[in-house]
């Protein structure tokens, strides 16, 4: 509970200092850093180990930032977080910052799952009908899952629209069991 509150605070601060236009870029970059933290234990301990002095850490982060071509904003934010020892909440911060950003832009993120790749014109239709449905601009992430057999499954926020054959079969099964 406390962690969530803390993360919300940092996410808000990030949004205010970086400016709304730069947010998408910063968030993607933070995502890269977070992946690195998850993958490399050395990097993680480098960020949180109290034996490493702030100067050393700054140098190290800058070097890595150069390699990853991170923007200045991101580097500053990472350094700040590691100094305060809250770098491990980065994932939570990214999640909240994304949500806040989408809220501000009146946008929503949707995940569309289909068994086969879908065509461009279909994508457009999907986008416009989703916009009508939830009254927001939609960023769509496409995921392929052959196990769905047919139809589409759309997840927007905490609502799921399921028209897939897999889902229909599940409904049919429960109906038959109920008798």
């Amino acid at each position, binding site marked *: 509970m406390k962690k*969530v509150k803390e993360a919300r605070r940092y996410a808000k601060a990030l949004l205010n200092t970086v400016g709304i236009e730069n947010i998408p870029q910063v968030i993607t970059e933070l995502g890269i850093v977070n992946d690195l933290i998850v993958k490399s234990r050395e990097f993680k301990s480098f960020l949180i180990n109290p034996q490493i002095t702030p100067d050393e850490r700054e140098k190290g982060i800058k070097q890595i930032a150069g390699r990853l071509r991170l923007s200045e904003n991101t580097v500053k934010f990472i350094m700040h977080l590691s100094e305060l020892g809250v770098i491990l909440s980065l994932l939570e911060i990214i999640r909240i910052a994304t949500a806040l950003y989408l809220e501000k832009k009146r946008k929503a993120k949707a995940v569309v799952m289909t068994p086969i790749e879908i065509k461009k014109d279909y994508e457009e239709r999907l986008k416009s009908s989703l916009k009508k449905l939830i009254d927001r601009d939609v960023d769509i992430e496409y995921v392929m899952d052959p196990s769905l057999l047919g139809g589409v499954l759309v997840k927007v926020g905490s609502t*799921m629209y399921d028209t897939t054959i897999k889902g*229909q079969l599940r409904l049919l099964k429960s109906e038959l069991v109920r008798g």
Partner: protein
Amino acid sequence: MAIEIKTEEIRELLKKQITDFEKKVDVSEIGVVTYVGDGVAKIYGLDNAMASELLDFPNNVVGMVLNLEEDAVGAVLFGEDRLIKEGDIVKRTGKVMSCPVGEALIGRVVDAVGRPIDGKGPIATKETRPVEVIAPGIIRRQPVNQPLQTGIKAIDSMIPIGRGQRELIIGDRQIGKSAILIDTVINQKGGDVICIYVIVGQRRPVVVRTVDILEKYGAMEHTIVVVATASEPAPMQYIAPYAGCTMGEYFRDNSKHALICYDDLSKHAHAYRQLSLLLRRPPAREAYPGDVFYLHSRLLERASKLADEYGAGSLTALPLIQTEAGDISGYIPTNVISITDGQIFLETELFYGGVRPAVNVGLSVSRVGGAAQIKAMKQIAGMLRLDLAQYRELAAFAQFASDLDKATRAQLERGIRMVELLKQDQYVPMSVDDQIMLIFAGTQGFLDDLPIEAIRSFEEGFLRYIRAEKQDLKKELMEKKVLDDDLRSKISDAITAFKKTFQA
């Protein structure tokens, strides 16, 4: 007549169902599991979930929302938590937890959600009801006015229980708490009371033994056993008493009488404590959460005697609490004592002193049961209570005195005989007319000249004598239900007549 199952028909039926199946978009609200373990899960999302709503997890596991947080919900799982993993999608169902109710459950052993576990096949119930219900309000109730006979002399005479009452049974481990419940259930045989026996947090062998005993004495014919053993997840143990109560309420609301035994509520509180701590609710006294009082009060408040306009049905509750070393001032015991309409306090010293049932008459009370007692019992119980109270006072004092005057000695002797008379074997509940006649014999001094060792055999012989030769006296007593002078003299005559043969 054997029912012929035609495969043709079944196939047609299935075909019809499949063709009629309407293809529709399945819109559901979802969340993502962010933490799972120890029977609880934390779910991100599910913005509109309501408290105590049922959730649909993968692999047919269901959960129930207990905590609503800023952007997550905490839920308990009614099933294996190993089947759930982080990242799984959880759906809202919009329903609350419910369990099957109805006549078909009688004679069966079911788990906390009403599924049969006795291997006797499926239970054909038509109706289900929500597990958590608000207790009936004051308009729907009436004061307790009918007795619920436990068949135990010490209880029916001095701590009477009425239908719709909540009477706590409290005491240390292994001194016959469950025995009182089982005897009470057995005593309802052939009567109009349906029993629900809820077993929470006990070992499985205990469950098997209890069901065996009930079967052996023919008590399963009017009993439902609801089981959540110690090996089941804490959420099941938490929900079992509520499910049992719902099953009992069905009978109450259909103008019948039901008795529900909770064996036991200390284990239930333990299960709830476990859940609450895992859900990170702040611990209070003895690490129980702040709402542990409400946990039991809302359960026991559902026991009630309905008003005549509402069918006059009743649900009597006999909760059981286990104490540590006779300490009834613990957190859970004091809570439940204050919720119930009285308590039956069992004592270790009495039990090992050979007084069984080990009821401490001084500490046990029934706050409302007196109104439900039949008149004849009330008439003799007053004397009995007085005799025993005087005996207790003198017994403590007499230990220091070497020689006592005659009156004191007589009182002591009377007391010893009354204590002896109130002893009773397990699984032999006694009808109320037998109880009245026996206690009458004791309080009127008919036993004073008998040696103490002879009291038990006198009791047995007398009851056999009455059954064989004085059936009409029994009948008259049950019809009049009051001890008038005529009846008194008739009973006295019967006792004197039997005593002659007994001593000879």
